Structure formats: structure tokens, C-alpha cells
């Protein structure tokens, strides 16, 4: 479904990604973890073309992201993305946040879009919030709306870029619960996160990145029980000790 092959990216002199490769098959949940500044967020943003890269290839459902002829808006409309800072549109109500792209990009009627939005708001447990504005919701609620907004496009895969990093601790679980449910429903997911509990529960594979490189890419059991590299072992010991 998502195939990342030897992707390299430079910001000026600085090489942010070094020949990164990874595969996400249909229905798989793959978690990317690693220290901050290791290139995780940059890599996931390359998948839907929000970041460009200079070398390598990324294929999503058989379509090349870097190909100049690719209709990127169309590709992006089929791949949902959830951001660290939610990025709900503050000038629109919760309902309008979820219907906007359905109407403008997919050409759905207002009625269809509203039906879909209500159905998804119920899924994330926020149906009664639909007339409110984003700033009236808590962080956890906003992130659940953001997930609903992405799902409203009926995506073939979902990208999560540190979806719980900006949340207060007591709100993390409400977001993870939605993500777990989504994973169990068979959604293809690529998730950048430090939430190892989530990874242990639903991930098929773990990708460990450090300094722009994919250092490990292994099934979760072997990754947690027996990390291959020192760098991964150190990282795990730092975040799992408490």
C-alpha cells in the first residue's frame, strides 16, 4: 500500500533523511519511533507530498508521490493525515470542519457530507459537539475531531504524525482508544508516536529511526524483547523505564 524506497532529503547542507526504506501493507499498522530530530515527522510528511525529497521513491497504492505528473491533491484526498497540533480550522464549526473537504474535494452534497460527519462524530464520541468551534473543545476532543475529519474522506490509509504529543496526559488515552479501534477495524496506518503501549497493542511492525536513518524495521515482539542495535536499546531503556 505504502512503499518508501531509499528516500533521502536535505535541508540545505543538512541531510534529514538518509536512504530510508519502509513498507506498509494493506491493513497493517506500522509505528515509527525514535529520538526527536531523527526525521520521523519529515519522513511521514513525504508520504503524502507535504515535504519534498531529493532522492528515492515513494509509492502509495501504485502511484508515485514524486512523479511530477501525479495529481497530488487527488492522492492526498485518499490518504488521511492527523497532525500533532490538530490543525482544525478555527473559523469553522466542528461540523463544517468535517464537511468542507467532502464537499469541495469529493463533490459530495451538503446533506451527504453532514450525514457522514455525524456518523463519524458518533464514532469518536463527540456527536453533541458539532455546532461548537474548535477552540471550545479540549485538546483530546479536537484531536478526535481531526481524526473524524480525515476519516470523512474515506481514506485508503491514515498517517498519524505524533498525534498525542501535544496533549495533556489525561487526554492521551481518549485519542489512543479511537486509534486502537481504527486499527482493529483494519485500517492501514502509519503512526509516528512515542506511545509504546499503543505500539505493543496494535502495531504489526516497529520502525526505529535515528539521525535520519531507518535503524530497525521489525515485528513488534522481536523489537521490544530483543532490539538488534544499541541505539534502539538505549532509546527503549529511556522511554520504558518508568
Amino acid at each position: 500500500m505504502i512503499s518508501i524506497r531509499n528516500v533521502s532529503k536535505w535541508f540545505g547542507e543538512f541531510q534529514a533523511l538518509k536512504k530510508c526504506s519502509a513498507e506498509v501493507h494493506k491493513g497493517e499498522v506500522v509505528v515509527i519511533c525514535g529520538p526527536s530530530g531523527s526525521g520521523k515527522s519529515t519522513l511521514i510528511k513525504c508520504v503524502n507530498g507535504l515535504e519534498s525529497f531529493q532522492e528515492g521513491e515513494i509509492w502509495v497504492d501504485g502511484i508515485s508521490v514524486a512523479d511530477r505528473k501525479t495529481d497530488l491533491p487527488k492522492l492526498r484526498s485518499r490518504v488521511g493525515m492527523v497532525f500533532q497540533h490538530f490543525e482544525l480550522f478555527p473559523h469553522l464549526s466542528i461540523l463544517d470542519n468535517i464537511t468542507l473537504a467532502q464537499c469541495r474535494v469529493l463533490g459530495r452534497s451538503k446533506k451527504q457530507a453532514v450525514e457522514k460527519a455525524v456518523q463519524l462524530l458518533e464514532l469518536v464520541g463527540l456527536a453533541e459537539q458539532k455546532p461548537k468551534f474548535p477552540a471550545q473543545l479540549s485538546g483530546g476532543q479536537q484531536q478526535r475531531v481531526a481524526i473524524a475529519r480525515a476519516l470523512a474522506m474515506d481514506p485508503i490509509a491514515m498517517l498519524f504524525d505524533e498525534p498525542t504529543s501535544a496533549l495533556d496526559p489525561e487526554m492521551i488515552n481518549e485519542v489512543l482508544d479511537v486509534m486502537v479501534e481504527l486499527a482493529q477495524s483494519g485500517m492501514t496506518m502509519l503512526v509516528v508516536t512515542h506511545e509504546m503501549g499503543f505500539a505493543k497493542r496494535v502495531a504489526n511492525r516497529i520502525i526505529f529511526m535515528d539521525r535520519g536513518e531507518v535503524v530497525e524495521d521489525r515485528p513488534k515482539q522481536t523489537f521490544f524483547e530483543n532490539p538488534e542495535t544499541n541505539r534502539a536499546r538505549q532509546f527503549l531503556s529511556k522511554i520504558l523505564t518508568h
Partner: protein
Amino acid sequence: MAFDWSSIPGSLPILWQGMIVTLQITLVGALVGILLGTLLALLRLSPSRLLSWLSAAYVTVFRSIPLVMVLFWFHLILIPLVVGLLFPGKRLELGFITALTAFSLFEASYYAEIIRAGILSVTKGQFNAGLALGMNRRQVMRLVILPQALRRMIPLLLTQAIILFQDSTLVYVINLDDFFRKAYNVGNTVGTLNEMILFAGAVYLVICTLASGCVRQLHRKLTVPAREIA
């Protein structure tokens, strides 16, 4: 020195005619200025280097020339030239057209900078969120970025319009009878120039103070409702 205010009540209808001219210049200057300013801001931020440069040049030129000179040039050279080409041989009263054109184009350069700052104040994350949903750049700009930018900028846009309202008095240099020039003329004719100028000043003061108060109120109302802190 004794003041003689007696000529004011009788001249109010004449002054009102001038006020209509003043308000028309303000309204047209602000509306066209905002539309053109938005266009200039979008060009300035467009990926095309040429368009961006052209927009920057426009803004720099107009912001570097005193408004009085802009009015003079439009009055003496540009408008007669253009009208001469379009309607050869006709003699038209051009003062009003000149004022509207000059103010619109001049104000656009100021509005462009305000709106550009507004667009830049919306974070890249919002842009990415729009793109990630499959919208193209124009859609993101129109549906996500501009509504937020303009909303944030409304107080500044209106404040600029209040400045424009005051600056419109400069049309006296092209012999256009706005409120101030009417007052000046009446005062000159009747012999109560000091009183008329003081009165005109008071009118500007009251209108601008009231308008500023309204802008503050509006600013409060526009703030998007935030979460109540329990």
C-alpha cells in the same frame, strides 16, 4: 478674539454635500483598496518570482511617494492622459474620478501589506492540513487561510479606513470640494474662516473617535469563542 458661529447652521446643507464626497472617497478607496490589496498580497506570496517582484515593486513605489504628489500626478498627468486617449476631444470634470482612482491605488499598497501580514500569521500547519485533505493551493488559500487572515485583520483594515477618511482632505490640492474644502470655502466667503475650520476639525474628531470605538467593539465580537475555563 471673539468667535462667530452664526454662519454654521445655514451652511450645513452645503457642508453635507462635501461630506458625501468625503464619504464616497473613503468608501471606494477602502473597498477597492482591500480588493486590490488582497490581490497584491496573493501575488506577493505566489511561487512566481516575477509576480512577487511586480507586487513588491508596486507596494514599494506607492508607499515611498507622498500622497499629495500621487494626487497631483494623477490630476495633472495620468488621468488627463488616459481620458484623452479614451474620449478624445471631450472636456470632462475629472476631479472626482482622479480622487477615487488615486486613493484606491494608493490605499491598495497599504492594504496589501496588512493583508500579507495577516496571511503570514496563519501557521503553515493550517496550510498543510488543508492540503492533506486534498484541497489544491487556491482552495486552501480561499477557504482556510484568507478567512482567518482577514478576520484577524479586520480591526487594522478599518483603522486604515479611518486614516483614509482623514487623508481624503488632501483632495483640496486638486480643487475637489470635499467636506473640508466646502467648510474652507464657506468660511472664506462669509469671513468666519477660523470658526469653520475649527468646526470641520471637530466633525472629523467626533466621527473618527466614534468609528475607532466601533472598531474596538467589533474586535471583541470577532474573537472566536474560546473554551470556558471551569
